[in-house]
């Protein structure tokens, strides 16, 4: 089975709709069983191309998109979605090359903040904090 094709289908759906597809839909698109789809997803996860949820193995992260709600909501013309972190939220606008509004909040005081991306420029104030150095990111990518 071609894992590159699996990855393409994951991102084709995600970048059109904002949310990674469930295994059942992915299997339909690939024309294979859910078991084979899961095996392909697991290989992609082992290669750090995706992150899977524990237990059922549905996609958790197809970076920069999150499959689950997070504190980083990104609103674009076509849909709203979630970034895995503030960097990923910006990354959604970057990879789609689209204007976006990012709704988040200060991780310390909780004050709501909206960040805009308009015509390739970011609008807003604030800071990103990378708690871990890059060489440790994949020790626990969910924590990162």
């Amino acid at each position, binding site marked *: 089975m071609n894992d*590159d*094709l699996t*990855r*393409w289908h994951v*991102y*084709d759906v995600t*970048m059109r709709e904002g949310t990674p597809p469930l295994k059942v839909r992915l299997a339909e698109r690939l024309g294979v069983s859910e078991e084979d789809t899961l095996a392909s997803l697991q290989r992609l996860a082992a*290669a*750090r*191309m995706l992150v899977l949820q524990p237990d059922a193995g549905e996609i958790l992260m197809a*970076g*920069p998109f999150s499959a689950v709600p997070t504190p*980083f909501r990104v609103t674009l013309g076509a849909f709203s979605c979630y970034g895995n*972190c*503030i*960097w*990923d939220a*910006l*990354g*959604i*606008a*970057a*990879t*789609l*090359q689209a204007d976006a509004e990012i709704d*988040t*909040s*200060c*991780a*310390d*005081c909780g*004050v709501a*903040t909206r*960040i805009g*991306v308009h015509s390739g*420029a*970011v609008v*807003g*104030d*604030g*800071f*990103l*904090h*990378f*708690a*871990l*150095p*890059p*060489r440790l990111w994949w020790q626990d990518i969910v924590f*990162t």
Partner: protein
Amino acid sequence: MLFFRSEEHIERWCKTWRLDQGAVIPLPQGWELARAWYTEDRREPSWRRRTLEETEAVFAQLGFTSEFWSLR
């Protein structure tokens, strides 16, 4: 990676959670990092993860040259 309103908020958060402060990046620079990292070809079948050298080049291009950003 979390968002903070100010560097003082980062300092207070790190103190609260007893974490060492990591890298603090102003929002405009964070946007440049996002643009450099998340390119439009992510959907392409030919897309692949960057090599260590390519990643180092991205960081260097943006001025991230401290030990924190070392991959080795």
